[in-house]
């Protein structure tokens, strides 16, 4: 997972080229870097800072401001619990708490051995299915606390 310098220069360099080194596209650039590494390695931010002449602090500020960006690696499976209003009124919090108990991590955490990362999202726009849990892009609709165990089992 640890990114070495030469590889960073190549991969991140290609992303910067794609955006014509446009400082206005920083958010998109960081999103693309994250897609590549599954998080934002410190070295990649240093490279962007140096190449585009943007203060490192500004990149740190962007990386911590936007929820979609993260500075630590994520687990192999991502469980995203929707906490939009429609899901909330249909009991999403109970579902989240059950998943937290099952995995033994709180929202935002990653299980040992980088297996699961548990996150929440404010709304995925699938309100008819609420409460919705998305695992690795699969939508699990009309979730109930008693369905949590089986759902996790599918991925472990």
């Amino acid at each position, binding site marked *: 997972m640890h990114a070495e310098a030469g590889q960073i220069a190549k991969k991140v360099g290609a992303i910067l080229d794609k955006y014509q080194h446009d400082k206005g*596209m920083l958010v998109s650039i960081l999103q693309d870097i994250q897609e590549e590494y599954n998080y934002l390695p410190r070295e990649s931010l240093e490279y962007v800072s140096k190449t585009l002449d943007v203060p490192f602090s500004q990149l740190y500020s962007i990386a911590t401001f936007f929820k979609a960006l993260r500075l630590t690696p994520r687990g192999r499976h991502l469980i995203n619990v929707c906490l939009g209003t429609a899901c909330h009124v249909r009991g999403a919090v109970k579902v989240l708490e059950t998943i937290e108990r099952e995995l033994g991590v709180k929202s935002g955490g990653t299980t040992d051995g980088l297996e699961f990362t548990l996150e929440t999202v404010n709304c*995925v726009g*699938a*309100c008819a299915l609420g409460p919705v849990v998305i695992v690795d892009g699969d939508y699990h609709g009309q979730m109930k606390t008693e369905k949590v165990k089986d759902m996790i089992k599918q991925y472990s």
Partner: protein
Amino acid sequence: MERLSSPAELEKVRKSIVSKRDAKKPCITVCSGTGCHAFGCEKVSTAFQNEIKRLGLEEKVDVRTTGCHGFCERGPLVVIRPRDIFYQRVSADDAAEIISETVLKNNVIDRLLYADPNTGKKVVHEHEVPFYAGQKRFVFGNNGYIDPSSIDDYLAVGGYAALGKVLSGIKPEAVIEEIKKSGLRGRGGGGFPTGIKWESCRNAPSEDSVRYIICNADEGDPGAYMDRSLLEGNPHSVLEGMLIGAYAIGGHEGYVYVRHEYPLAVKNVRLAIKQAEEYGLLGKNILGSGFDFSIRINRGGGAFICGESSALMASLEGKVGEPRAKYIHTVEKGLWEKPTTLNNVETWANVPLIINQGADWYTKTGTANSKGTKIFSLVGKVNNTGLVEVPMGITLKEIIYDIGGGIPGGKKFKAVQTGGPSGGVIPDSLINLPVDFDELTKSGSMMGSGGMIVMDEDNCMVDIAKYFIGFLEGESCGKCVPCREGLKRMREILDGISEGRGKEGDIELLERLSTTLTDGALCALGSTAPNPVLSTIRYFRDEYEAHIKEKRCPAGVCKELITYQIIKEKCPGCGLCIKSCPSEAITSGGKKQPVILDQEKCIKCGACYDVCKLGAVKVS
């Protein structure tokens, strides 16, 4: 594809597309919106395609995967056009039968029809389904007819005709005049008159005459997804609106700022831009008129505040999405300090409609100061969850009961929340309220972008206020003190109330803090943030008082104030709850005897309540 060099050529191409299509040819449209996707619509469309191939019917039957039809509750949805036969909850296994029976023999398959839950009556045609019958789908309607990945589909239903019309010699000022006359107001929440916004932007001085156009697709309101469905299902209508807006204000560069949580919308808009460029509907010298316009896509980074115009623009400039004070409006100094017109997805999608049909036609729908239709996402505790487009002025009752089919499970309607985190709750007593910008504001809520979350007797209003304040606290950018600190304190007070630590004077303190936020916050996120609190206090003060004075949550939601109990008479001791209990608080009471719940060990997770189908667990 050759670039079109004039509006006349566009019409020629349209004619040729339409002439090649047989209006009578059966077309199986499969809804492929997010809701239906989650229900597995992809397998359904593949099954149709395979079956058609197997029978060699490629020339005789079309299959079209379309954007969202709106009736997400009953997905996957399939409509057989042109006869409009409406099938719901369709699975891949039904495909062969639908083709052999309905498409080839004109027989209707009874079990796939929608049954009205109130009357039990089966409905055959799409437009007769009560969910659709009460709607006016001016903006959203084409979603069910076109494949969003096909520009030809959009052209076939009259797409880009409005662009052709304005580029045939209508002056930009006249376009603005028409939009002003239509009374169109911003659909993103603010309700600002679109024509006036355009006019100010056009008239704002710009040294190098650079002006920007932005489509705000950072749909952050939890519980709202109409912009997503428009972008996914009919992206060209949004691009066409932006093109007309750009022409009117004299802009040549545009941006679509779309949430990264909406990957399909990003994909479809990207494709639509490429297709429009190939046709010469975007780029240089559009339709030979000399007008240039290009559009780029930016993905949001998951920050609610970026739906605010100045924060969105900061984010587009590659900065942290913090808003700024708007004593200078963004129409004068917006993106990169240039005059900028920012409108929401739905607003843009209304524009071609107004240009095509005229402002006089448009103003026939709606109320005195709110014209046209509005798309709402009708969600929460309602039978027919989905997207509904209704004329302004329709009552809440018509939306929730006639279109939405009422409340599930025989529960009692309690309130409806509109306007997202900036809005408020509207109680049962105002169910006959006509829905438009002004009436909703008067009630203490607002139109917002169109989320409409229905709540029943099992929802606690203190919990709802806490939910929104907690949401906003997390999304506050932290730049101004009233919002950063005020929301934190409000959340702490609400936490206290819901956890049994509420005290005399808390309600008044919440009201005072609300005034501070309303008056002192830098942007609309902060200044409207108290609405969920103020509106719940206004209409459900007794519920707050029950929490504070009696330490009781009447709806049975606030964990610290409730207990779970076993109703002995109803419990046969099946033991399901024992298995589900994570804290070993439930033990067997002996064979065929009621189980025993140890209150000391109970963590109030509700697992036993959810798992018991006999109603032997009660909350009090």
